[in-house]
């Protein structure tokens, strides 16, 4: 019996080992890594990770082979901003898990606990090439807070979807923040400063606080604990901000408190690009937002991505329209940034490796390199062209089914001459 089982185990092991090796051959691979772009390349994937990428690499015996001859191959795309998996239908349809109005916690609000990898929206994004995403708390429209809580990094695969908790602490300043803080952007800054000061005080006097020998804090313990990694510099602030003067204030504040920060929005970031580069503050830029939606965005313009690039600012590309249900449209953002002067390679980097760097997960994702998770997209043509859709997407080495509720709806209504009511058609 024992022998039988060990034989069986060996057999299973072999089968499993073979099944878990995949080779993608023949494509033009944009690694976004040190290997650059490789023609007629081979990518070897074992146990969900890239083990080799290059030309002239032998395909291991028994590997399953995906022929990408004549195709474009890129890393999986990384949506840098949005509420993926936190929202079903944002307007009047049950909870929107990205925001809350409870007074007792703000910074401690961690969206990772609510993330739903089975959300209908997930398949809709991933079949268009999105494999990783920042899913981010939002302040909500009424009764929100300057501090909204902790963002998570997720993968859009079917297993182990949560990559990183507490990837950033979301802060809303500027016009939005002033609304939550009492009607002035000054009050919003003061709210943030008070939160940081309380976290520092709590850190330094935790024992006294627990013995009841320290003053009360406005924040709950859950908030103060969550803020510890912010004041240590490990968790960046993710700051919703547009106005150049607010960005200058942020730069000063991060220096004063020795914090890390990421700007999201950044309509006027191009005006202080050099200062952002010096302060090493990256930007998640809304590429096509070129109108003054508010007085914070008075100098919004197209072409900002290229100005940030030339100044040496680390940036990811997003769009106001692409932040939740349509994260998939970041390829359109990238294409428009190229049309406005950004290089194609930097645009691809801005929707793959750059967001991974911004959120501190670039050791694992963002490029096709040995040792990284095998998130790979195979495209029939230039991925930024709007007529291009992926042929196949792999997440952690697994070729995902290329279907979503939307493709099912489409297929059901492709033939209008059916004599069956829709509910009796394809399921």
């Amino acid at each position, binding site marked *: 019996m024992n022998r039988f089982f060990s034989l069986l185990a060996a057999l299973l092991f072999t089968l499993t080992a073979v099944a878990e090796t995949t080779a993608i051959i023949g494509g033009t691979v944009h690694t976004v890594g040190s290997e650059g772009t490789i023609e007629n390349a081979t990518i070897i994937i074992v146990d969900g990770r890239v083990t080799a990428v290059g030309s002239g690499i032998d395909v291991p015996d028994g590997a399953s082979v995906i022929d990408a001859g004549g195709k474009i191959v890129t890393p999986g795309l990384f949506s840098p901003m949005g509420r993926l998996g936190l929202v079903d*239908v944002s307007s009047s*349809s049950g909870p929107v898990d990205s925001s809350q109005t409870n007074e007792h916690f703000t910074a401690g609000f961690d969206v990772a606990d609510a993330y739903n990898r089975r959300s209908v929206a997930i398949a809709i994004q991933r079949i268009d090439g999105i494999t990783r995403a920042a899913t981010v708390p939002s302040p909500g429209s009424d009764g929100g807070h300057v501090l909204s809580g902790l963002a998570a990094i997720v993968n859009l695969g079917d297993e182990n979807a949560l990559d990183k908790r507490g990837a950033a602490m979301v802060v809303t300043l500027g016009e939005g923040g002033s609304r939550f803080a009492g009607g002035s952007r000054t009050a919003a800054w003061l709210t943030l400063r008070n939160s940081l000061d309380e976290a520092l005080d709590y850190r330094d006097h935790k024992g006294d606080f627990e013995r009841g020998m320290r003053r009360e804090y406005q924040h709950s313990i859950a908030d103060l604990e969550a803020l510890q990694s912010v004041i240590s510099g490990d968790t960046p602030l993710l700051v919703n901000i547009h106005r150049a003067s607010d960005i200058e204030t942020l730069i000063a504040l991060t220096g004063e408190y020795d914090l890390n920060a990421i700007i999201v929005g950044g309509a006027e970031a191009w005006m202080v690009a050099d200062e952002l580069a010096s302060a090493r503050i990256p930007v998640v830029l809304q590429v096509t937002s070129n109108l003054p939606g508010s007085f914070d965005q008075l100098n919004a313009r197209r072409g900002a991505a290229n100005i940030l690039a030339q100044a040496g600012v680390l940036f990811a590309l997003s769009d106001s329209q692409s932040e939740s249900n349509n994260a998939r449209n970041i390829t359109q953002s990238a294409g428009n940034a190229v049309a406005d002067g950004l290089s194609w390679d930097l645009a691809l980097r801005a929707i793959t490796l750059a967001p991974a760097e911004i959120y501190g997960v670039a050791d694992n994702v963002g490029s096709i390199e040995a040792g990284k998770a095998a998130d790979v997209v195979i495209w029939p043509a230039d991925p930024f062209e709007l007529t291009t859709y992926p042929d196949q997407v792999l997440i952690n080495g697994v070729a995902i089914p290329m279907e979503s509720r939307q493709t099912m709806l489409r297929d059901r209504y492709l033939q209008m001459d059916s004599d069956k009511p829709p509910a009796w058609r394809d399921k």
Partner: protein
Amino acid sequence: MACSCYSSRKILSGKKVIKKISALVALAFFSQGCDRNGEEDGAAAFESRYKALAGDATLLKGATVLTGSGERLDNADVYFADGKIVAVGSDLSADGAAVVDASGKWITPGVIDVHSHLGVYPSPGTRSHSDGNEATAPVTSEVWAEHSVWPQDPGFVTALAGGVTSMQLLPGSANLIGGRGITVKNVPGRNVMDMKFPGAPYGLKMACGENPKRVYGGRGQAPSTRMGNVAGYRSAWIEAAEYRDKLEAAEKGQGEAPTRDLRLETLTGVLNGEILVHNHCYRADEMSVMLEIAKEFGYKVGTFHHAVEAYKIGDLLAEADTCSAMWADWWGFKMEAYDGIRENAALVDKAGACAVIHSDDEIGIQRLNQETAKVMGAAARVGIDIAPEHAIEWITSNAAKSLGVEDKTGTLEADKMADLVIWTGNPFSVYSKAERVYIDGALAYELGNNELNPVTDFSLGTAAATGGAK
């Protein structure tokens, strides 16, 4: 088009006369303006005072031309003069015309957006600028979007850079019947009269579904349900039909004409076929019900806007000759948008119905060509091939049809307005941009030409005005 202007002299000629001719006066308000060569000697109130920018006779040489009427002509020329298209074809020549080498470029008719809130919900979106929804009663057919339009909205200029030469400015969708929409040429002036598209019919904005029932139901008043919505439309049409009947009877000398009623005057314009219905409606079942209401009261639904589920009823829409104005891929932001698919416009088109891509958005209006491209690519995945010369119709001639101006613009046929765009390449490539935009034969925009390009008053001193200086 017959001119239905009535001089202010006539209107002011006495109370009795006013009453007698009130039906005729009302007619003057169904069309935005009259031919400048019209026989009438005065100008009606709110009439178009649009004047084209100055332009020269121009010959564009050697481009790939999508005519908007289904044709693609390679290495073709376009000649226009006096604001009108003169000819499209090969090896054209024209004495004295300015010649533009357009080889390697693509030329299309000017892009038309049938659904915009520029000017009524302008940038910046401050509360003081929120002029698009008269959300004080579920039926406000008495309001006209044009009376909210702020021509200094910087969005007109950014839309122009996206090749948009005409658009309809609509009231919002808070109300069952939200008021009149207005079609304008994208030449912002000092007031809305300077922009009004000459001779374009008015639109009437109606809205199905979640918005009206949320706005009014939330205040504990009707409508609070979809059936409440439908009762609201029907009640309004019953009133309008009665008003129309009294007007018609008075014209025949049978009884007194009713006191002029702005609210019912606009609805009567719809019943008479002079004002076109633009109905915000997402779900297939609701659009179907709206078609029944139109049947009941004898009007036509010109266009369903948003029409996220139009693909489910393409046959019904084709039969009703109703256009669907759609986004390429907006979905899921509200329950009635849950079933949005990217192939929507392609499936509507395949069913033989009129497909239009619209924006409803000050950013989206800048790239309707890109939105169209998304649908082309999605359709190709399921074997529906939509050629560029056909796809362009969704944002040009079909949009013109939706607005009732298809005899004036939307294609590059002779005698149409010379509204056209020279693109740097295939307009359905993400890398292409509008290089030159002509409106009524005048160069209104040129890529990178800060000397020429317009800057609205609001944008003075900002990046938009300086081409990006700090």
